[in-house]
């Protein structure tokens, strides 16, 4: 899947206070066109409406939207499930529109998703990013992701990808860290039990 965001601002940016941005968990069908518009605009791969529904219907609590003055300016879409005996979270799409990049919105969106994944018992979180997507690589690097593998000509345009992985600490080993990450999660929903038999699609 893809990520289109950069902490380096490109082009004309919009002036706003971080507190002006409102983060909302996926709230229903009325959010779907907003997510779709953003992803369609920014990412090259074709996703049908069913792709979005697959994610947001099964894991609504893992998807977030960022609003500025009522406009949706960023979104993150995720899933989680069993993968080779590991309960794994997966970040499928992450988009922040250009004028709003470089202000930490993407970091906040991903952070919220990962917190829910941690609460739900995920042991690790993965995603793919183009090797040339420096912004995304830096963002995920700051969160603790490592580049676990390089996927040779992964995208159909011939570009390699990195499989990024975040190993979450086991609570019994490092409880302080988990507690720190769990602070301020009033926005988060109850953890949903993941559906059985779901699998990664990459």
């Amino acid at each position, binding site marked *: 899947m893809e990520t289109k965001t950069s902490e380096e601002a490109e082009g004309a940016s919009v002036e706003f206070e971080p507190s002006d941005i409102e983060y909302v968990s996926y709230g229903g069908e009325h959010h779907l066109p907003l997510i779709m518009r953003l992803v369609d605009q920014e990412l090259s791969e074709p996703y049908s409406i069913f792709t979005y529904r697959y994610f947001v219907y099964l894991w609504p609590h893992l998807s977030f939207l960022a609003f500025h003055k009522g406009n949706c300016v960023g979104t993150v879409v995720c899933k989680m499930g069993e993968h080779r005996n590991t309960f794994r979270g997966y970040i499928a799409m992450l988009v922040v529109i250009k004028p709003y990049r470089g202000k930490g919105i993407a970091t906040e969106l991903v952070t919220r998703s990962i917190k829910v994944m941690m609460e739900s018992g995920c042991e690790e979180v993965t995603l793919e990013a183009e090797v040339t997507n420096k912004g995304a690589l830096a963002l995920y690097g700051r969160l603790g992701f490592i580049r676990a593998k390089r996927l040779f000509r992964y995208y*159909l345009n011939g570009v390699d990808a990195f499989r990024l992985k975040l190993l979450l600490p086991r609570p019994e080993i490092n409880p302080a860290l988990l507690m720190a990450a769990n602070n301020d999660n009033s926005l988060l929903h109850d953890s949903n039990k993941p559906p059985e038999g779901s699998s990664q699609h990459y």
Partner: protein
Amino acid sequence: MAERGEGGDAPLPASIYSDEQTVWADVSPLLEAACRDLRDGELIHGENFSLFAAMSALEIMDPKMDSGIEHSGYHSIEEAIEDGAAPIPLSFDRTVDVQCTIDIMDHFLACEATWHKGHSLAQTVFSCIYLLRLDRTSPHALLHSYCRIMRATCAAVISVVSDARTHEGRVVRLCMGHYWCCMDFTTCVGLSFLNSMSLEEDLFTMAYGLPLKGEGDEKCLSMLNAVEETISRQLRACKASSSKKGILENIEPLQTNLDLEEGYCKALLCRLRFRKHFYHVLMCMKKPQGRGFELARKHIASCLSELAYIYNSLEFLGFNAYGSCQNDIEDSTTASGRQPVGFDASLNSRLAAPTPPRAIKILSWKKAIKYFEKLLHDLDTICSFSMDPLLEGILRFVVQFQKSQPDLVARAHLQRLLVQDGKLYGRDPVFDVICRAAAVSDVPKNSGIQKSEIVLQLGQLAINLLKILCTNAAWQRRKLGKILQDWSVIYVQLELASKRDFAETPNILTDVNVSMKLSKHLLIWTEEQIYWIASRFLMLGFELDLYSPTEYCMVYWYMYVVLIKLAEATQLRMGTSSDIAKRKGKKKRDLPKDLAKDSQIPPMVLLLQCYICLSEGLTMMLAALRNEHKIFQRPSAFNTEEERFIQHFELLQRAHVPGHISYMLFKESTSHAQFSTLVRYNYFKDAQRIAKELRSSFSSDSDRLVELRQIEQVAEHNWIALNVICQAGAEDPSLKISFEFSHHPCFAIATVKRS
């Protein structure tokens, strides 16, 4: 929604006969009724229809998904031909006909390079309508012979890559797996390729439904030779007439514009000859055990010189191009800059499975020439390989070969040379190879040891290792990480077996001795391979850009630990082999001088010592920067450095390579690093000193001398950086320190700048 066919208002029949069991039915009324029933946001659920399955649905008329929208307009090859998309002759003006034929040849070269670089055959070489209906071209001897050798060449290349296909991988993300099975909107079917994993060679060799083999292709060379002969005579005749020597033979010229005759003859000849020699290269390299390599090298040299002629024809062809050339030559797929006649990539899109049929960009003609130059140089390197019987030399050769990042076709050739019929070079049984590598001198005859389960497995592991080393770097690293466990398991088994053998056969002393020695040698050798694989695994991580600068410290530390183990195992193995050399040497009088100094450390081990020093030096410098300058460390929101350590070295740790290594140990060995102590005990100086001393040992080995020079440079730059940082002190905030790989792909040098 279903669309009506092209008939416009004419109603479709209720059903169309398909075969005895089935009919095609128009489902539009059913879908319309279903649409009326469903509200916005409602979904159909079914046992065999989940949200996951729904993702493979297609949205018709969405240009991102529906490749049918950008269809060329032809429904079949026949339709394209009838419409004049691939005329024969290409023009009734013979000059234009020649020009167009050259364009086709050039575009073929670009297509072929694009195919080799990872696109499907169907969308590249076989986008040529002439090639898809080869028999049609028989009246046009020039085009026909060229198309035929193209087809035979593709088949030969596919055969090499198929032979080598066991391992090479490329995980292809097939977007969400949309694939047109049928272009007709009333009967569209979407197939899901979710979770698909396709190997690099699979995509390469995919040739479903393409006319790849045809009768008479074995005669492709003689056809080409005949055409070449005719054109060389035309060239001779043209030269003779222009020098007023009179006409030698009564030969009809190639085309009608006599001023251009020589230029066109030459442009064609180098293209034909390139094809001929390239085909010869493939055929020679196909011969078992490298028997055709010498001849192959001659053809490679010819190919390269013909490529140069082809490139030089650019000026002539570009200047004399008829019609307008809109293309910029840098992007053009032909030397003339024109679009070629007779190619249509969309005709084959139904055959392009399993990738969604998308438009691909064919490499430019100039890039294609560059690609073939590189391929030929890589093949030449393979052909000039001495076919070293020693595994150590082979591993070194393969690693060296991979440094130039050869593409799939070259790598497949190397793999086929190394492993044929489960034997090295198709010649040496693996057991013999291992015994040689492990310096086992006397294998007890009829001892059955060759057939023992463990030895067979060890042989299989060695073969797999060779194959893996021939794959692309990304796949290679993943596979190396995985096979480490197999090697570790076999090591433990060997260890157990040697103890058991000793316990069970106490009577026959000589046998015990021999078998004990064999076990000991195999054990040492296996251990050495394990650490060699581990070091390669770690180093490839740098080449693939998998480590961030904040992780360099732990990676160099792990590398240091692995390299020490590797050096120990190598020294042990060489110690045992020099025992043998000593014994053998005593029988002969002319004992080589350097064997006499067997108490010294072998050069190979000293070379490893250089890398150990560099690794340790970099570890400590990075650790001191973290401890005193508070840089190159990264606190992160969700985990600690320990988790990142576990992730990076998971595969090594799982295989106990080496045992008892933990994050705690890493912390213990680096948490006290300081610049003041680092300058006093300098690892970089040691590396530099040993590298200098080693020059005489490797004086006849140019690759090793380059390697030593690299080591010296890395050591020197880091030594200077270390001093600068040390003098500036930790308090100086204006120092900007970064690490670069300008002198070695794995060993960084610190660069210090003042901001």
